[in-house]
């Protein structure tokens, strides 16, 4: 019987000592962690991907709570995280469009790359580029050692049957890991609504570039797209056409004129034409002003009309019309 009493006393006292000890310690060593930081940290996905520019989610949470960092920089978290943080911080949630990665090169597969030699070294792009500037003829093209796939921790990049790298827009969170991983800087983060891309990064002269490109879709720097673009969103940078995505309206006109098909427009031919519904239109002329190709005509206060030949289907008028009197079909 005494053993039971002894054991209760001993273990009981141990439990009490530890309980009190932990309680006192938790009070005395109270680290004044701003509760907001903890709450924000719980909301962030915790992938520590660094897309927000901070080393890890805890650092980003700290930055938000203490230095008033922007709250929409968490790419993997997306709108959901952004809104939740906004509630905590009491700010208005400025939603930012989701970015996805785009690879500006159409060669790099098995049968669309011209090779100088068969590369059998360390299978990483960084290593391949160090050996006489990569195995493929084109000095700016993809060296197909898949560093981007290795870097992506959202499993968004896969190889298709021809060995080309395909980015899955749903999985890609725009965290930018692949952008850093690619030694040739072929990958750029682009808002998801922009569909038209110049899939080439060569600064070689036209003829040289075309000859070196296995796919023969090199940008020869002719400048036709620059002239054709209704919103002047394309500019020539050292012999290479580059789209400025803030101006670009994804109308696809540049893709039509590009002689070497360097510009790829997935919506080619699928774009609808704008039609103004006469009963809803109040003639406020906003669409006419906004239309990049002046396809809409009509006096103020009168029902406007769209010239379907001129209309390039960029849907700007459709978005701006206050009375949504415009339909795309």
């Amino acid at each position, binding site marked *: 019987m005494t053993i039971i009493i002894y054991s209760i006393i*001993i*273990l009981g006292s*141990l439990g009490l000592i530890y309980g009190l000890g*932990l309680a006192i310690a*938790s009070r005395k060593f109270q680290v004044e962690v701003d509760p907001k930081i903890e709450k924000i940290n719980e909301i962030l996905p915790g992938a520590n991907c660094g897309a927000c520019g901070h080393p890890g989610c805890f650092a980003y949470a700290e930055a938000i709570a203490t230095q008033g960092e922007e709250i929409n920089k968490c790419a993997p978290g997306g709108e959901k995280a952004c809104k939740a943080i906004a509630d905590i911080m009491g700010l208005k949630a400025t939603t930012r469009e989701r970015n996805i990665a785009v690879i500006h090169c159409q060669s790099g597969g098995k049968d669309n790359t011209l090779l100088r030699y068969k590369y059998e070294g360390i299978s990483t792009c960084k290593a391949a580029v160090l050996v006489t500037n990569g195995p493929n003829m084109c000095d700016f093209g993809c060296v197909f050692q898949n560093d981007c796939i290795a870097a992506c921790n959202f499993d968004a990049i896969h190889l298709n049957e021809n060995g080309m790298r395909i980015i899955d827009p749903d999985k890609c969170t725009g965290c930018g890991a692949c952008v850093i991983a690619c030694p040739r800087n072929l990958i750029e983060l682009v808002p998801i609504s922009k569909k038209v891309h110049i899939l080439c990064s060569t600064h070689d002269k036209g003829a040289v570039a075309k000859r070196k490109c296995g796919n023969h879709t090199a940008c020869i720097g002719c400048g036709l797209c620059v002239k054709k673009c209704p919103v002047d969103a394309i500019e020539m940078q050292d012999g290479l056409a580059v789209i400025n995505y803030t101006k670009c309206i994804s109308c696809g006109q540049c893709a039509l004129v590009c002689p070497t098909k360097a510009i790829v427009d997935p919506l080619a031919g699928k774009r609808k034409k704008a039609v103004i519904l006469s009963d809803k239109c109040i003639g406020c002329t906003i669409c006419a002003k906004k239309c990049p190709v002046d396809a809409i005509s009509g006096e103020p206060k009168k029902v406007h009309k769209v010239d379907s030949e001129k209309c390039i289907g960029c849907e700007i008028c459709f978005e701006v019309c206050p009375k949504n009197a415009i339909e795309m079909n």
Partner: protein
Amino acid sequence: MEFIGKIFALAIAAIFVQNFVLMRFLGLCPYIGVSKKLDSALGMGMAVIFVMTMASTFTWLIQNFFLVPWKLEFLQTIAFILTIASLVQLVEMIIQKTAPSLYKALGVFLPLITTNCAVLGVAILNINDQLNFIEAIFNGFFAGIGFTLVLLLMAGIRERLEKAEIPACMKGTPIAMIVAGCMALAFLGFSGLKI
């Protein structure tokens, strides 16, 4: 002089002959879990050495001043693990307050250590081998070093494994197990060593 000999013998035994991870199978969960990167392995190793030494000290005191005099040996498990859990939680709070930078490097490993079999293992082994107080502390310390040594070796190998050509199904834990098996084979060579 004989005392130094005993400590040296303990060191050889704890680190090589009866290595806690490869021969006694203690502390495998963190061993497989944390050994992906060298720096996190080092952080974990330091935390384990510290906690093991502290744990050996406290548990030996509790056993010989609380449990044995009142013949409560059956409470050994519960008393030891309660001490270790509270110790780790206390250490975590102290480090978080006094050395935030150290806490950033070490913090995430500390709660992991409470469920580490090696810490409780070394505490119980100190009692089963009837070591005295000083020997128990050294045994805890050397066991920690043995754990860290093997953990660092493993982290080094696994970092190179990332670049190696491994069949898809073997990536991750399975290949880590095979590597651990080879290391255990190597450590088997030590088992005949006796000081």
